[in-house]
């Protein structure tokens, strides 16, 4: 899922300063799961902004809150079309994709990001999320025992570890595992060390020029997508 972090309240206050009526808009998918932009966080942020205004004795905003199922799908944004008419800005707690969907759906509306979109990852334990995929567009997990060296090696290199590894950890931090040591150990367990002995040529960075677009094949389009 997409992992985001809520921006500090004072940064949000500075952003919303020019706008009187603000819709705080949550998203019901990834950001709900990572506790940063779901219905609960929308409500907490609403309270925090109100409290900050009371403390500063300068009540200059009115807030409304709403959380849609997914901000990155236009059909869910239709549901807030009326509310959007009555505000000066939408403070989106969705990832950068959600915030941009709003900008595209409501061309006249100011959109403000209430979170920083961090990475694609997974929950490791309560309150800890780790990055696992960089969406490089050229998946090689088959060659690396299901551990991504592009994401988990700080240098993203393909032919084995650099010489900076110590105690199985990365030169960048003693807390961070060396991805290539993990890959070696798992390939060994799977009896696939020959995959590590292969030479891998330089990556094709062609997928990187942004933005990328994927066109579904006609058969998939005919079935009707996967909204739900």
């Amino acid at each position, binding site marked *: 899922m997409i992992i985001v972090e809520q921006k500090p309240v004072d940064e949000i206050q500075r952003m919303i300063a020019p706008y009187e009526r603000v819709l705080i808009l949550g998203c019901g998918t990834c950001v709900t799961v990572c506790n940063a932009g779901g219905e609960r966080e929308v409500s907490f942020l609403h309270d925090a902004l109100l409290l900050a205004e009371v403390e500063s004795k300068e009540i200059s905003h009115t807030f409304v809150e709403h959380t849609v199922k997914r901000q990155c799908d236009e059909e869910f944004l239709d549901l807030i079309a009326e509310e959007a008419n009555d505000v000066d800005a939408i403070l989106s707690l969705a990832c950068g994709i959600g915030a941009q969907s709003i900008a595209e759906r409501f061309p006249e509306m100011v959109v403000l990001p209430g979170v920083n979109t961090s990475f694609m990852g997974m929950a490791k334990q309560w309150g800890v999320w780790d990055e696992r995929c960089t969406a490089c567009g050229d998946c090689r997990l088959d060659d690396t025992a299901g551990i991504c060296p592009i994401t988990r090696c*700080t*240098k*993203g*290199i*393909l*032919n*084995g*570890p*650099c*010489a*900076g*590894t*110590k*105690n*199985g950890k*990365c*030169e*960048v*931090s003693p807390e961070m595992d060396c991805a*290539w*040591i993990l890959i*070696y150990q798992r390939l060994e367990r799977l009896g696939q*060390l020959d995959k*590590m*002995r292969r*030479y891998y*040529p*330089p*990556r094709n*960075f062609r997928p990187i020029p942004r933005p990328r677009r994927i066109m579904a094949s006609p058969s998939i389009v005919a079935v009707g997508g996967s909204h739900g």
Partner: protein
Amino acid sequence: MAKSLFEEKLNSGKFLITTEVGPPKGVDIEELKHHIDLLKEKVDAINVTDHQSSVMRYPSLGGCLLVKEQGGEPILQMTCRDRNRMALQADLMFAHSRGVNNVLALTGDSIDVGDHPNVKPVFDVESAQLLRLIRTLESGKDAAGNDLKGSPEFCIGASVHPSADFIEPQLIKFEKKVAAGAQFFQTQGIFELASFRRFMQYASQFNVKILAGIIVMASAGMARYMNKSVPGIIVPQEVIDELATAEKGKGLQKGIEIAVRLIRGIKEENLCDGVHIMAVGNEGIVPEIIEAALMEHAQT
């Protein structure tokens, strides 16, 4: 015909000594020139480091040109941290055009360990891929398969970590570098001969020259710092303890003693093809180490 003077020496069978100089942060190159002058007659080649430890400095290629101008034999250290394939190829062609024909291909330290932690790390390729890229240029093609008008030639080397604490993946990488065309290896610093002997038993099956990396320690504090903060370096506790026995202000002397002892040991046991002395900031003492190591050896 040899591609460089250093390649000729690699094939001569003589015990080789290389060392390295680190360019300054800034444009005052007097000390660098002084070190090159001091070292050029004493060693078979001088490496010029490439923003070592990811600290921004005067460029390696600029340092190599100085070595050439002053009559020495340079080895261009080239990391993949700061340049993509376009820039690496351009620098290689430039190096060749100016007579810098030895390259040590390195992946490069992470950006995070240096003094510009917010800049964009590149790593478009890594060491094994860079070695192959150099061989590709030699074949008259660039990385995209286009024809070159005039192709360069290089004597190429790489690094290996003989005393890594998890050695097997390092050896796989070593073999990939051999297969990619590395002719010589300058190893990560070694501090004791036991693990190096084991490494050489394995490495001697390959047709490459190995120069043992000797880091000259200036104090026990420096050794502890390197263990904590320098990527990959593992100074054994016994070496730290020995450095700690030095009187105050005599740490470097003790470090020199240890370096001399290692070089003598390597030479006496005929363990490998030579040594690469890294004095990290104390380049001035390298001639003394060489003299002591070779002289004492002659006496035994």
